[in-house]
């Protein structure tokens, strides 16, 4: 039964999801192109949010339930830091209602056909090409424009237990922004790294109350924050994966 469901998910729901991404992009492209240049990046970010909501809908269809637990978000911009084990993780953020997100990702995403236009158009940041100071400046500008900043501090899907690098938390410290820990459980089972088969899985998405840099003073405060947030997220993910 599981195998049958996986086949159905992969060939029908997976195909429908890809079709959604392609058709929505084709329909939106002329409107985005006509948008005033200074508003275009924001419009593309909103469009990515709409696409993400669609993918979350397909994940509901393919899975064994999708639960979203949201903590109250602080007013103003914040940094979202999530664990990362699947290509689906990028889209799960749509379930939380953050509709103006600046993603900081690895360089290879900027080289993908079609996606690269969205990545560049939305003003997302290539973490491998950008120096720490340039990143800080770009994030400062994004925050002024009302963006939230999203990072996967593990940097890769290959090791779901990898350490949280401290870059996201250093940014939080420098820009004095709260960090919202985001736990994503179940996507690793649904679509693990290196697989194209979409397995039925129970997905649980949770945001925790914001963590503030002022609670982590000292030169290595961002390192401590990274360790604490990783523990908070992974404890939750482990508990959910055991169920």
């Amino acid at each position, binding site marked *: 039964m599981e195998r049958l469901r996986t086949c159905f998910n992969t060939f029908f729901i997976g195909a429908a999801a890809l079709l959604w991404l392609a058709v929505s992009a084709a329909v939106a492209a002329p409107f985005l192109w006509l948008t005033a240049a200074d508003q275009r990046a924001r419009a593309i970010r909103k469009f990515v949010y709409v696409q993400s909501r669609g993918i979350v809908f397909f994940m509901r269809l393919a899975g064994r339930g999708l639960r979203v637990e949201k903590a109250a978000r602080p007013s103003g911009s914040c940094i979202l830091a999530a664990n990362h084990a699947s290509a689906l993780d990028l889209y799960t953020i749509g379930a939380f209602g953050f509709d103006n997100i600046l993603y900081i990702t690895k360089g290879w995403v900027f080289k993908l056909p079609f996606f690269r236009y969205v990545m560049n158009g939305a003003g997302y940041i290539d973490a491998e090409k950008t120096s*720490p100071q340039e990143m800080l400046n770009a994030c400062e500008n994004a925050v002024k424009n009302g963006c939230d900043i999203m990072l996967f501090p593990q*940097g890769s899907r290959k090791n779901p237990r990898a*350490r949280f*690098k*401290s*870059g996201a938390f250093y940014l939080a410290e420098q820009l004095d922004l709260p960090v919202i820990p985001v736990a994503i459980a179940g996507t690793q089972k649904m679509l693990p790294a290196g697989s194209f088969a979409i397995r039925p899985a129970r997905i649980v998405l949770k945001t925790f109350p914001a963590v503030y840099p002022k609670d982590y003073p000292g*030169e*290595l405060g*961002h*390192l401590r924050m990274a360790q604490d947030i990783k523990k908070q997220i992974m404890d939750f993910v482990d508990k959910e994966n055991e169920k």
Partner: protein
Amino acid sequence: MITREEIIKQTNDALKKEFEFKDEQLVPTAQLKDDLCLDSLDAVDMVVVLEQKFGVTLRQGYDLRTIVTLNDLYDFIEKLAKAHHK
């Protein structure tokens, strides 16, 4: 004065604690960037961690870019510890 063995042990202990490395990763030939995947910010954090551990200043007057492997790092700390002891 601190011995090289103590430097290696204390450095590895600090790196394991702060950067979640495992024993098998911390071989002297391991390259900080390519094998241990330490980025520029990690390198800064590592320097602060080691300064606190050994009570020496690693940031001023030295070119940290010459430190490529863990062995280079042990050599560097040993040199500083000797200079500090004098």
